[in-house]
């Protein structure tokens, strides 16, 4: 018997799919922005505050990076209510994604900060800048520029990982897929369509982040290229 594909029932639910895509994008953008800000604060805390704060940041990063996102999500969704904090699924998902991403981003940005040459810091300090000012005006942007490609791929991975939020019934794209599958009984067709949408979203985000990186860091990256040439010579 030949296999008959029926996509009409799936497309009949296109409103639902659009809502799912919007929630996936909303969660991802929210987590990227919040996670990036949190990561910058954590790196700043590690660089500027004492050794103990640094160790705490390290512990946080290692804990998040060495446990599955799914378990972190469960911990927040099922665990927080025991403390009297009841988060709806979507908020729990955003919080889990933000915390998870911040740990990876902290590790990446820290590598960028470490790659800034010591002479830069000394130059800043000799201009009577405070250590905070040096971090803010001398170190941060070049560090971000250097690690932007690594950050970008981490952001794309976060977009893909957002699909795991369907485990706590968040109606983002893959959560929507589960609902459509129940309504239509066309499992394979549902997941083909949804998978293709993820593919388009991920590739688009990748290109967009590349463009954004070139827009934010045009001058710095050209300086970096000069540095690279000088080192090669």
């Amino acid at each position, binding site marked *: 018997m030949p296999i008959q594909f029926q996509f009409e029932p799936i497309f009949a639910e296109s409103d639902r799919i659009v809502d799912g895509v919007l929630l996936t994008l909303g969660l991802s953008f929210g987590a990227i922005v919040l996670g990036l800000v949190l990561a910058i604060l954590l790196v700043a805390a590690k660089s500027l505050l004492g050794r103990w704060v640094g160790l705490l940041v390290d512990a946080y990063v290692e804990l998040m990076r060495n446990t599955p996102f799914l378990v972190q999500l469960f*911990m927040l969704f*099922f*665990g927080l209510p025991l403390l009297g904090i009841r988060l709806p699924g979507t908020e729990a998902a955003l919080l889990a994604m933000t915390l998870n991403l911040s740990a990876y981003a902290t590790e990446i940005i820290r590598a960028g900060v470490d790659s800034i040459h010591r002479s830069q810091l000394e130059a800043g300090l000799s201009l009577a800048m405070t250590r905070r000012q040096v971090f803010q005006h001398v170190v941060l942007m070049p560090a971000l520029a250097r690690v932007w490609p690594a950050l970008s791929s981490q952001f794309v991975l976060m977009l*893909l990982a*957002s699909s795991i939020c369907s485990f706590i019934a968040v109606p983002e794209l893959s959560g929507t897929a589960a609902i459509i599958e129940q309504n239509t009984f066309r499992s394979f067709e549902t997941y083909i369509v949804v998978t293709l949408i993820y593919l388009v979203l991920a590739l688009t985000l990748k290109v967009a982040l590349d463009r954004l990186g070139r827009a934010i860091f045009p001058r710095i990256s050209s300086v970096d290229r000069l540095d690279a040439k000088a080192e090669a010579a």
Partner: protein
Amino acid sequence: MTTFGWPEALFLFRAAGWTLLLTAIAFLIGGLLGGVLAIMRLSRIRIVRRIAATYILVIQSIPVLMVLFMSYYGLSLFGVELPPFLAASASLAIYVSAYLAEIWRGSIESVPFQQWEASASLAHSPAQTYRHVILPQAVRISLPPTVGFLVQLVKNTSIVSVVGFVELARAGQLVNNATFDSFRVFGLVALIYFAICFPLSRLSRHLEKVMNASRPH
């Protein structure tokens, strides 16, 4: 309602064994497939290169969860009803193959091209060159990122709980549903994952340092 005690904890530890087994099988099958893909990606024949590159790009751009659903429902279309363990291993292997192929391609490419020339001048065939000259060096270079990826794999095995296979994350859910002691249950689950992943992370970082030390800079 049961309380969270030793029997529940033991149940979690036993489930962790399944997580490890799943990781091992996915890594083995995915590694074999990934190795073939890495070499295809570097083939002299354009179409072969293209096929491998497209496969890698697609798999890396869709969620593991979708790989899982696609292989699960795709196969059942053909009347193949896979038991959850096989479906889980197969889809994780597909996921692994794409990432390892890319890691290993990078490692093979970072072996200096003079090594290829030297090997060719000794009248080695391409297969002999790979076997005796390139791969022994590439394997060394690839060790740190490969071990690092193993951490991602261990964590991503948690996703297969969705097809009903009881590994560590699913076991945690089951115990949680029975005890409602979410903090302790998922705390222990997280701790077990951490106990598996953290040493691997450290090993990866250590290997990276050892390898870098031997390289002139």
